[in-house]
């Protein structure tokens, strides 16, 4: 336990981000050029917080009476969230003008949602988890429907809002039952006597309601109904953030909850629940994605499948598979945001040019975008030496160590299915003739984001050990 004043230095990322949100609101109020300044202010904040978190990895403490963890795992997740937000902001600079959501609120909401995610990943108390979750979710509801004149945005926001708060209802009632049986909201107090409580039916119902609520948030089958509609209807840059950082935040909570279970009691609790979730998500996500022609919708179903692969790691429930999930989440952030950035550059006004036909013959128009799209598709399909391969490898290896070989085989099978629809995009780009003529807009921020993600995907794929060692050293 550090000395009292030291706590505030470790909380610096959260303080900087909170002050940044207030500052951004003031910039918007008092300057006329807020919309042009705010992306750069947000980028600087996200870059600082991401790098600072990476530098404080080794200072791992529980502070504020054990309700909050700083450093260690929380810092790794802070890095993932902030890099995802930084890439999203770079993508957005040109995109939100095209999408007619050129408001300063856009950046302020992204900052607030990232603060919510950071609170979730640092939480060791159910109250803190709940507040972080709601801060993130409410910002996402608004972001999904930011263009209020556009019907697709309205529909996405309404579906996300109704199903998201439905899930919140489950989570709150589950927490109420857990609190009633244990008399505490601290994760440590709940899980120290887990075996004793697990004889109580109300406690098990509470835990299941909590897990069902979070299964909604990670977009796992059978709680995935909202995913394709919301991901297709929301602005592409917002979808990129929701599908990567939002999923990572929900997984960070599941890792805290199940990881504490691992520390204090039996690791195999809830294994059946997550095995079924993983089985359904991987297969259904991959199979339905085959029939999709719209790229955003295809990536939405692929995101369901990826949630399934990560849920295999939760089912395995050992230290190695949890580290694998964190690696997978980082890799998924880079490759998915890269893919969504390319979609946002190619997308025309009024949500045109989102189908596969628009990608036919792309390599003649823009060889750079074509090559990077192929890179991200290979990475998502899990072909070495891209980052996606090692994410899957670590998770499946953890499953085999935990005697869940059948689940690992299902995972490999569904990756094989998913290769079909990922590689179809590449076939369209390189082997089809151009069907529609259009000019691709120049986007400096977008190209910067694509280059960064491309480099990171390759770096994580070629040197997976550097990041994996960091994770295994500091995850508990």
């Amino acid at each position, binding site marked *: 336990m550090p000395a009292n004043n030291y706590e505030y230095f470790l909380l610096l990322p959260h303080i900087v981000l909170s002050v940044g949100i207030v500052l951004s609101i003031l910039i918007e109020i008092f300057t006329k050029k807020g919309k042009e300044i705010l992306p750069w202010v947000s980028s600087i904040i996200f870059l600082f917080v991401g790098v600072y978190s990476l530098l404080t990895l080794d200072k791992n403490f529980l502070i504020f009476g054990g309700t909050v963890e700083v450093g260690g795992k929380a810092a790794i997740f802070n890095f993932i969230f902030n890099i995802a937000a930084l890439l999203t902001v770079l993508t957005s600079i040109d995109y939100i003008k095209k999408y007619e959501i050129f408001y300063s609120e856009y950046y302020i909401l992204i900052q607030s949602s990232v603060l919510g995610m950071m609170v979730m990943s640092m939480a060791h108390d159910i109250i803190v988890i709940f507040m972080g979750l709601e801060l993130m979710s409410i910002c996402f509801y608004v972001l999904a*429907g930011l263009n209020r004149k556009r019907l697709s945005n309205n*529909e996405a926001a309404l579906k996300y809002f109704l199903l998201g708060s439905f899930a919140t*209802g489950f989570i709150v009632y589950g927490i*109420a039952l857990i609190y009633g049986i244990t008399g505490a909201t601290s994760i440590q107090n709940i899980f120290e006597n887990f075996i004793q409580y697990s004889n109580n039916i109300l406690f098990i119902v509470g835990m299941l309601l909590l897990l069902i609520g979070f299964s909604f948030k990670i977009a796992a089958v059978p709680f995935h109904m909202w995913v394709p509609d919301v991901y297709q209807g929301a602005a592409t840059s917002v979808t990129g953030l929701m599908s990567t950082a939002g999923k990572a935040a929900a997984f960070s909570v599941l890792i805290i909850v199940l990881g504490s279970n691992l520390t204090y009691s039996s690791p195999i609790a809830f294994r059946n629940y997550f095995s079924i979730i993983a089985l359904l998500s991987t297969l259904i996500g991959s199979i339905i994605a085959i029939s999709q022609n719209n790229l955003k919708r295809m990536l939405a179903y692929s995101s369901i499948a990826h949630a399934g692969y990560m849920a295999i790691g939760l089912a395995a429930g050992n230290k190695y598979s949890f580290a694998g999930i964190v690696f997978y989440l980082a890799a998924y952030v880079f490759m998915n945001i890269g893919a969504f950035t390319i979609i946002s550059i190619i997308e025309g006004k009024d949500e045109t040019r989102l189908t596969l036909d628009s990608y036919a013959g792309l390599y003649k128009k823009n060889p750079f975008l074509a090559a990077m799209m192929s890179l991200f598709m290979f990475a998502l399909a899990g072909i070495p030496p891209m980052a996606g391969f090692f994410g899957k490898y670590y998770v499946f290896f953890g499953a085999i160590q935990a005697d869940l070989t059948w689940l690992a085989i299902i995972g490999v099978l569904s990756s094989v299915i998913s290769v079909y629809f990922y590689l179809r995009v590449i076939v369209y780009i390189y082997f089809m003739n151009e069907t529609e003529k259009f000019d691709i807009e120049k986007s400096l921020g977008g190209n910067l984001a694509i280059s960064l993600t491309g480099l990171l995907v390759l770096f994580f794929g070629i040197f997976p050990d550097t990041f994996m060692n960091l994770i295994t050293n500091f995850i508990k």
Partner: protein
Amino acid sequence: MLSIPMEYYLVLSALMFTVGVAGVLIRRNAIVVFMSIELMLNSANLTFVTFSSYLGNSIGQIFVFFVMTVAAAEAAVGLAIIIAIFRNKLSVNIDEINIFKW
């Protein structure tokens, strides 16, 4: 003061929660669905207060304040979304909000 057994409160809140879930699944008006969600949150609040009172610790009551705050924020955002969709479609029936399929 504690003459009513705890189970009565718990059964009542469980019933409220069930009514809320059923309302979300069955009703077709977006505002009624939203009201059903609020009912779910309030049933959780009742459970919190019951347990807090019978366990004799105040964490449950503190949590209720957090839940109420969040519910208020959700109501502000949710009603705004419903108004936005009503302006475009002149309807809040969720069966008619169906431009995305498959």
